[in-house]
């Protein structure tokens, strides 16, 4: 039996909330109960009970959902899978199993220590596998090894049939292939409750990686220099980044607000063989920014710092630069925590082309603007390098992660504590995004990175309910080439009663 936590349980107040402390927005939005499940059987039993009670289930693995899709469930129940962490492989093959409740950091440890393999997933230790992999799952190794779902062989999922009965399915490319594809990037909370991800093979974990950080001083920055830095960064991934020898390089342009003092570039690299014997790719990349006089010694002062600079095991000179070479597991696990819960707002986009001067100037404008009552040091526009193996041919059709021609992926992140600052901070973030994505493209899509020659929409794992204001929001997240209608058919077939739904779930 699942562990049921009701309103009178001392654990309730903790478990009812999201890591994004904006949710639940109202006390009346909060769930009635949380069902903590340790096995698939627990999930099936609890889910059947929930359905019979006429209650809405929502699903949580790690609790990192950016929007209110899980905890805004008045009178409802959360199926909390954080205790569903079984890792034993299936009996019928040489498979690796990841359970939805496992945190990414634990998965890296487990896979590394048991098998010496890994998944090309995210950097935050405590992110749960369930939501992360359902939406695609990418991270520092994605240019080298693609998305996590690209490696996925089989999924165990509990669906609810037309009569309201729960049903455990094992799906793959030969069994319920449509649902299998939908589970490879379609996003969480849509079709059923995933209780296991199985992989026939996984890439070997790198032996070591080289980390670098470049820091730029906002005090000496002007619009032209700022634009030149962005252009240089984007230009690398628009051209040089297509060469497979660079795919081991994953870089993040961390554009913090000017009030934070500095912004920078983080990068991690390994050669395709998982070693750092040849660092000329790194040197070449770093040389591009030399003219902007970065200071590698200055650590980032805010934002989500992706790469730990502490405890470096081996500092090495590469031309005129210094890199920190570290054993991969240490570099991946060390300092990769997700920090405390806070109030937050996120937005995202995929970029198929480099920044235009107009876009760079727009970013500069908003990052140097001030809001009278708000400290914007915790506002970051992260520009992740993309492409490489993440753009592998055929994967758009095999999976539901359709964005396979982008060179960069942006994530707007904004963190704060005080609820009274919600309105001002949300307004700043919204205006920044709307302004940036009004620079180009058709006017009817202004304010959004609608799929075009320049953009590939938004990332479903960085959901943004502001996009619901646009009738074409499904095309922002699922493209305009037929994926969304496909997912709607899958929804109709496997969740005919729309048991699983949230604000941005597939609408049949």
């Amino acid at each position, binding site marked *: 039996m699942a562990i049921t936590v009701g309103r009178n349980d001392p654990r309730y107040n903790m478990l009812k909330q999201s890591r994004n402390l904006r949710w639940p927005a109202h006390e009346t939005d909060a769930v009635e109960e949380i069902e903590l499940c340790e096995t698939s059987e627990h999930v099936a039993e609890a889910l059947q009970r929930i359905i019979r009670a*006429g209650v809405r289930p929502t699903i949580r693995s790690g609790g990192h959902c950016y929007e209110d899709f899980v905890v805004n469930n008045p009178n409802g129940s959360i199926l909390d899978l954080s205790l569903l962490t079984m890792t034993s492989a299936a009996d019928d093959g040489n498979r690796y199993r990841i359970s939805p409740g496992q945190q990414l950091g634990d998965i890296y440890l487990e896979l590394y220590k048991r098998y010496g393999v890994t998944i090309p997933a995210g950097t935050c230790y405590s992110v749960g596998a369930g939501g992360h992999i359902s939406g695609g799952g990418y991270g520092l190794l994605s240019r080298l090894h693609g998305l996590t779902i690209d490696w996925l062989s089989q999924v165990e999922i509990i669906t609810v049939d037309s009569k309201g009965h729960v049903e455990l399915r094992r799906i793959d490319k030969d069994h319920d292939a449509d649902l299998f594809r939908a589970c490879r990037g379609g996003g969480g909370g849509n079709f059923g409750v995933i209780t296991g991800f199985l992989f026939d093979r996984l890439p070997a974990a790198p032996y070591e990686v080289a980390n670098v950080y470049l820091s730029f001083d906002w005090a000496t920055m002007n619009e032209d220099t700022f634009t030149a830095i962005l252009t240089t960064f984007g230009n690398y991934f628009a051209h040089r980044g297509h060469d497979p020898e660079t795919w081991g390089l994953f870089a993040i342009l961390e554009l913090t607000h000017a009030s934070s003092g500095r912004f920078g570039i983080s990068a991690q690299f390994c050669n395709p063989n998982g070693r750092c014997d040849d660092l000329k790719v790194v040197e070449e990349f770093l040389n591009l920014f030399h003219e902007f006089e970065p200071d590698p010694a200055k650590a980032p002062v805010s934002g989500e710092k992706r790469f730990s600079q502490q405890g470096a095991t081996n500092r090495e000179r590469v031309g005129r630069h210094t890199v920190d070479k570290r054993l991969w597991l240490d570099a991946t696990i060390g300092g990769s925590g997700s920090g405390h819960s806070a109030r937050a707002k996120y937005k995202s986009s995929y970029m198929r082309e480099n920044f235009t001067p107009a876009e760079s100037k727009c970013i500069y404008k908003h990052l140097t603007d001030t809001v009278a009552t708000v400290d914007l040091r915790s506002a970051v526009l992260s520009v992740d390098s993309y492409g490489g193996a993440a753009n592998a041919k055929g994967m758009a059709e095999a999976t539901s992660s359709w964005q396979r021609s982008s060179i960069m992926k942006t994530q707007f992140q904004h963190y704060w504590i005080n609820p009274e600052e919600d309105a001002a901070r949300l307004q700043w973030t919204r205006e920044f995004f709307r302004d940036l994505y009004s620079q180009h493209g058709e006017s009817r899509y202004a304010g959004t990175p609608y799929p075009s020659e320049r953009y590939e929409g938004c990332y479903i794992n960085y959901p943004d309910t502001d996009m619901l204001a646009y009738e074409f929001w499904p095309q922002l997240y699922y493209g305009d080439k037929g994926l969304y209608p496909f997912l709607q058919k899958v929804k109709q077939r496997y969740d005919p009663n729309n048991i699983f739904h949230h604000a941005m779930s597939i609408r049949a």
Partner: protein
Amino acid sequence: MHSDHRLSNKLSRRWFLRSTASLAALAQLRPAAALIKQNAFAYVACGKRQEKEDSIRVFSLHRREWTPIQRVPTRAPACLILSPDQQTLYVANQVDTHKGLPHGTVEAFCIDPSYGYLRLLSQQALSLAATCPRHMALSPNGKLLAVAADGGAIYNLLPVLTDGSLDRPCSIFKQLDGVPSRPRAESHPYNLLFDTTGNHLLSSGFGSDRLSTFAVAHDPMSRRMQRRAAEVNDPGAYELHPDGSILYVWHKIESNLSCYRYDFHAGRVGETIQRISMPGYGSDAVKALAIHPSGRMLYTAETAAHSYLQAWQIRARDGLLSPAKRIVFDDAPGDEIIVPSNGESLFVLDRLRGLIHRIATDSATGELGFVEDVAQIQGAQSVAIKTL
């Protein structure tokens, strides 16, 4: 008679027909007329789903005359219901999206007690995935509004605040019945009713072959509705006697009108006390039932070979039915029967043609009197009559 169109010859068959010359003038609000105090007002939900013409139209009633006094734009109004004190009008908006999210809405309008005008009090979104609400019921004390969302087969309970406005849904229930003979378990609610205690809610719908009752009495702000507590197979329209102890149900497949005992303490449907077979009637032959406030007459709107309004006398001692007067409509089936609280008349709405018939009734016995067409309003979906 008020009309949006020149009446077709069919409509002039046998009913009183007012001059169409005045109709164009009536189509627009006339402030002078609007300022005349009236005792009765009609509220008509007009429009098809999510069209620009959707509105609530307000008429002052004087004898047979329906004078338009206000047109309030709204989205896809599908159902109207008056508060017990008749000071507030509730509207179910049959929409599937509100502010980008998949849910329907309900609205509360304050009614000007003298002039009948509507003023929006609140618009409240239903719970997520509760789309296209089509039916509502108010608890007898007027403190709880139940809404049935056709999309999602979800019921919402919304607290009514002291000014008549609506709070956020406090209880949500998704109904899956698992009817073996039907391809989908999701029902499509089409009827809702509180019992006389207000402690239970009765519901039925397509896709569900049983009547469900839900306990809603205790602390509805936090307590969810309970699962089906009683079953009546294959229910169509149904109505409770004002004393709360007899339930009248039209059975769609069996084509019969049945009377059941109803235990309002437990919220349970009891034994059958009468079954009136109506052979030759189709499953949708009876679309509406209503009971006169006196509790002495039941009305059914029927469509078989002809369209009828059938009155059934209710025996005082045991609630059994016996047929009374029948009124034949040539080709105007009734989709909704509205019985104002003063008991002096009832109204039958034919949605297809937008026709509204008024039938005089004896306020003490509910016996049917003369009939007249009082309005033809294009797109009319639901009617509420304020008589206080």
